[in-house]
């Protein structure tokens, strides 16, 4: 940041204005808005950019204060609110007359850094869920922390960015946005962190064996979405196709459902596989997380011949 937030923001807005009006650049522009920028400048930026983002960076305010005492969440949330107002006003205007100017048509996004401070996944996901409740928020990005210097002792020394955790957070994020999950179903006080070994949807299913098996031919869409191994697209295919005929496991396989996972959680016309309520969540977990032996590896159950 150079000088004040408004000074930097004003220069950035000037750049995208030139790109759009002088160079006639028609492509996608995603602009990072500076925390603490004024409403006029954010409004001006929204007229030229497709998407605006203001980065939260650290999910809780006290940790942000520890790393950057001069920063606060207020300066992030205010521009976010300006963007939201701009998007809603523009939508209203455009409903009246189509020639009204568009304002950040691709909405806004934000980013949080994961692993630099000691937030639990619960804190992170509750923050995201609250953000998604706002109308114009399209995406929250989770970015694994990569150390840039070794002298700042407030930051952890990591060899590798926490990639698995990042991946699990994105999976949880998808559950919030597309799978009709509520945030307290994914993480709660008993499970404040996501399971790194299995994905959050499978984890939910194993915590709730009483909800399964689900009958593919009868259950409603929301329940089919919750079956591990079935995604949004295949859930829609199932709901559409079962009006014609009862679906069999062969049909499901062809539609692209991951039967390896799904078989423990469904019933359909035939299919008599041991499901999660007959056996136990622990057993299903063990089977699904078992590491596959590399090809050609000796079978550990077979004794070696020791004739020499």
């Amino acid at each position, binding site marked *: 940041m150079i000088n004040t937030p408004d000074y930097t923001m004003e220069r950035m807005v000037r750049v995208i204005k030139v790109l759009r009006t002088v160079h*006639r650049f*028609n*492509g996608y522009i995603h602009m990072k808005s500076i925390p603490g920028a004024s409403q006029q400048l954010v409004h001006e930026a929204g007229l030229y950019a497709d998407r605006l983002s203001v980065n939260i960076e650290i999910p809780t305010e006290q940790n942000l204060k520890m790393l950057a005492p001069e920063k606060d969440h207020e300066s992030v949330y205010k521009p976010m609110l300006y963007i939201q107002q701009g998007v809603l006003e523009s939508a209203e205007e455009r409903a009246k007359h189509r020639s009204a100017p568009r304002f950040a048509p691709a909405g806004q996004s934000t980013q949080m850094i994961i692993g630099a401070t000691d937030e639990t996944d619960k804190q992170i996901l509750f923050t995201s869920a609250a953000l998604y409740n706002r109308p114009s928020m399209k995406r929250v990005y989770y970015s*694994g922390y*990569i150390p840039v210097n070794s002298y700042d002792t407030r930051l952890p020394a990591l060899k*590798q*960015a926490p990639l698995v955790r990042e991946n699990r957070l994105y999976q949880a994020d998808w559950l919030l946005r597309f799978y009709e999950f509520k945030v307290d179903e994914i993480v709660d006080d008993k499970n404040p962190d996501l399971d790194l070994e299995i994905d959050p949807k499978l984890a939910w299913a194993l915590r709730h064996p009483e909800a399964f098996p689900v009958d593919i031919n009868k259950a409603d869409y929301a329940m089919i979405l919750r079956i591990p191994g079935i995604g949004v697209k295949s859930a829609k*295919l199932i709901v*559409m*196709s*079962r*009006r*014609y*005929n009862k*679906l069999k496991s062969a*049909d499901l396989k*062809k*539609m692209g459902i991951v039967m390896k996972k799904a078989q423990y959680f469904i019933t359909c016309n035939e299919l008599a596989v041991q499901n999660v309520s007959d056996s136990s969540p622990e057993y299903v977990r063990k089977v699904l997380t078992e590491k596959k032996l590399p090809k050609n590896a000796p079978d550990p159950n077979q004794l070696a011949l020791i004739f020499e």
Partner: protein
Amino acid sequence: MTIFHYDKTFEGLLTAVFDAYNRKTFPDRLLAIDEPEPLFVDELFTVVSDEEKSKRVWKGLTKKLQHNTCNMITYAWLSELPGSDELIFRYIRKTFDNKQSIETNFADDDVLQLKKLAQKVNHERHRLIELVRFQKASDEIFFAPVSPDHNSLPLTLDHFADRFADQKWVIYDTRRNYGFYYDMKTITEMTLDSTDLFPKGKLDEKLMAEDEKLYQELWKGYFKAMTIKERINLKLQRQHLPKRYWKYLTEKQ
């Protein structure tokens, strides 16, 4: 076994549908005009493409099917994969023979396959839009060679005419040897006599605009500077940028 020969055009395929209903015999195989028949043929028929007939079939389809599904049929046709014509034939037949729409019955193999095929072409259309790299020639025309697996180039033209409305450009399919030229007003189909002008997907340096080399260097430098070493993930990169496109990507040279 009943065999229809036709000229392997979309119009010909629709005419074949018309003729089949007219004759009340339905082909087990659809072959090109000069393709040899298998043994034991009961009935042979050669379809003569007819605009009137094909239009009637298409009109019937647009009445019975949603707009999207009609698009899916054209997309599946553009896949140019062997057997896609027979699949489309079966799909059209099921559409006409059933009182109720079969569009969402994905337990039916033909319906599912047609959707998957259309999806494949659509994915390639997206990838073309993402991965086309233009090179500026000395006559101010922006040139981009492509070689898609399916014939998906025509599906991208609306996008490019919108996006680069104030530039002249040519996108050329080197595999099918045809392309499209946009002169800031209309798009016209074109064929080049030889592809010597752009060996290996690169425009000949003599034909490049003066500053083109510099822009390519700039783009490569940008690509390098934006790389985050800690997050290099080659497997993921290959998923998003399949290797068969690399020869046209400036940043990958």
